């Protein structure tokens, strides 16, 4: 096998989200990452050069690369999450590019839901602002494992070390109030490329890694929970052919933990126990399976199992209950109805629920809790109590992003209206 292929087959996938407004240089930063990692094609680059020239600029305006969003805003179209792709020899990257203004909290939450890393932009001239608090709060609420605070526009503050250090201090105070496990800081100039992909010669005082180096090396394989065994059954495979006459396999994606043939497991909700017979993937027998693999499992005993059931390990049982508390982000123009009924999707389970109570709302710009106000509208976040039509098997979102997350769906419009993280 050639080195080329060897390299490709060792690449990891990293998903990150970027938070910051256009004014923070977010588009320029993404453009810079794509440009310096040579993920931009010639025809695009030529188009940008022409556009930059037309605008009377000598330099290539990298923000134009991701300008779809800006154009949309000017036209008054709903701004959305846009996904962008690039790769370096070490990793393949998926960027969930979301606009950072308060009215787009919905989009940030969406982009953050699958991210390993959040890149938060702070303008060196302005320091930690209300929007920085908002972005960091959403990153912590969605339990993004790693946060990279990029202090941008260092060129406009003479690449001053003190400015960078002051912002770090400001941010650390904020982070103390949030649940953020891993924070890094990088002083950059997205416009000129300092510390984005290439090391800055203008900031010799900074000895840390560049943004790209962090993105390429941050340890992400333990972002998945590999301790508690959870396997939501997605689809039951019954070939009913002569060759596989009595075959019953359970297809699904490992939510967490490591499963091995021979492991003792419990099937919920029946509570029956058995052992794993095989774990397979198209004629290939696997000696283990872990998140986020999609596999097929067979069991020693013939147990009646259907979609929505969960196969779990012995070490730690999930919580069970029909009354749950969630942190809810409301995603729809029509406000949440207190006492209203909604469809609920949790792992591979479909059920219904009733909104029982709003405990408090969160002012996402100050992090203050607001008690007494029971209305929850678009882009608002609240702690809410739900009652479900049947018991849910779950973990707290803090311990498991898969078995701890759910969405609410409006019964009349079928729209996805709420994103819930189980407390």
């Amino acid at each position, binding site marked *: 096998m050639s080195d080329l292929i060897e390299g490709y087959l060792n690449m990891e996938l990293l998903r990150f989200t970027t938070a910051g407004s256009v004014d923070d240089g977010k588009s320029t930063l993404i453009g810079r990452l794509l440009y310096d990692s040579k993920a931009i094609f010639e025809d695009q680059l030529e188009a940008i050069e022409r556009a930059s020239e037309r605008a009377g600029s000598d330099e290539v305006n990298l923000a134009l690369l991701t300008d779809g969003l800006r154009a949309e805003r000017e036209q008054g179209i709903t701004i959305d999450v846009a996904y962008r792709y690039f790769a370096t020899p070490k990793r393949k990257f998926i960027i969930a590019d979301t606009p950072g203004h308060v009215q787009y909290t919905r989009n940030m939450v969406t982009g953050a839901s699958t991210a390993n890393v959040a890149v938060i932009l702070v303008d060196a001239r302005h320091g930690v602002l209300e929007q920085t608090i908002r972005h960091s709060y959403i990153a912590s609420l969605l339990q993004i494992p790693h946060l990279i605070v990029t202090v941008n526009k260092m060129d406009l503050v003479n690449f001053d070390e003190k400015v960078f250090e002051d912002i770090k201090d400001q941010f650390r105070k904020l982070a103390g109030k949030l649940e953020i496990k891993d924070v890094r800081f990088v002083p950059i100039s997205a416009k000129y490329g300092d510390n984005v992909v290439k090391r800055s010669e203008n900031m010799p005082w900074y000895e840390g890694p560049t943004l790209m180096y962090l993105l390429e090396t941050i340890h992400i394989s333990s972002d998945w929970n590999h301790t508690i065994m959870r396997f939501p059954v997605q689809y039951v495979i019954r070939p009913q052919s002569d060759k596989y006459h009595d075959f019953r396999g359970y*297809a699904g994606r490992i939510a967490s933990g490591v499963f091995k043939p021979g492991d003792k497991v419990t099937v919920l909700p029946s509570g029956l126990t058995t052992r794993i017979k095989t774990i397979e993937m198209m004629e290939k027998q696997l000696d283990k399976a872990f998140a986020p693999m999609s596999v097929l499992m067979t069991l020693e005993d013939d147990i009646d199992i259907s979609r929505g059931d969960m196969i779990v390990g012995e070490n730690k049982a999930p919580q069970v209950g029909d009354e749950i508390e969630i942190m809810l982000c409301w995603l729809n123009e029509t406000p949440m109805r207190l006492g209203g009924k909604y469809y609920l999707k949790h792992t591979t389970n479909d059920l219904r629920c009733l909104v029982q109570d709003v405990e408090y709302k969160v002012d996402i710009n100050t992090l203050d809790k607001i008690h007494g106000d029971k209305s929850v509208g678009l882009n608002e976040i609240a702690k809410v109590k739900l009652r479900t039509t049947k018991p849910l098997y779950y973990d707290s979102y803090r311990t498991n992003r898969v078995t701890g997350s*759910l969405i609410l769906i409006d019964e009349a419009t079928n729209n996805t209206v709420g994103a819930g993280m189980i407390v």
Partner: protein
Amino acid sequence: MDGYHLNHLQELEAESIYVIREVAAQFERPVLLFSGGKDSIVMFHLARKAFWPAKVPFPLLHIDTGHNFPETLEFRDRLMEKTGAKCIVRYVQDTIDAGKVVEETGPGASRNVLQTVTLLDAIEEFKFDAAMGGGRRDEEKARAKERFFSHRDVFGQWDPKNQRPELWNLFNGRKKLGEHFRVFPLSNWTEMDVWQYIYMENIEIPSLYFTHEREVFLRDGVWLATAPFMELKEGEVPVKKRVRCRTIGDITNTGLTLSEANSVLDIIKEVAATRTTERGARADDKRSETSMEDRKKEGYF
């Protein structure tokens, strides 16, 4: 924890298989749109993996424009025979004959746009409620915002302003009567990922993707294949060249690449070289001699 590591292709595969199984679980009459191109071949491969050892629990649908490369159809028929899968074929020619659409004429005429009508007719005929396509978000700007589960109204239309938010891996396939979904299991793949996966899994692809001698002519800087239904303009002279397809579509609009790539590995090298081409080297870069349509399909914005 280092024993628990997937490479990017394995992670993309796991995600796509999850999406395909979700489609089979949430919809009553799903269908997989099959064009004979590499993306739909990969999607079909993933579907087989998703349900093995059972058969893929939904049919394939090929919208035949009548302007195919003969190799594409041979490949399709052989693949169906080998796997025992069922492929429904509906013809644009029938849509034309029924007077539902009017065909373009003259040089440059294409049936590309007409396909949509035939497709929507087929969706209605079979009451399909979810149609899986090989579309990827890296193809162009508008696609960058597409969902895995993309809702279509009763008229089959997409409303980009009113898409459902898609969080975690919780896909909402709820719909009203007459509405359907387009589902894109390969959303997060790039052109390069597709080629690497074909290599990793040793997936068979049509011979058109590899270098071969063919009669071609140059139109607007793009090499096109000659065919009985291709009208030549004045000054267009058929010549023989060593070419291959970067993408497989209709003969009328599939630009051919001058290439000696003889294996998937060669193709990966070619794609890699295209990606790292330095500014300015492009004017004489043979690999860029493809139509814009081709580029969009193949991973250009």
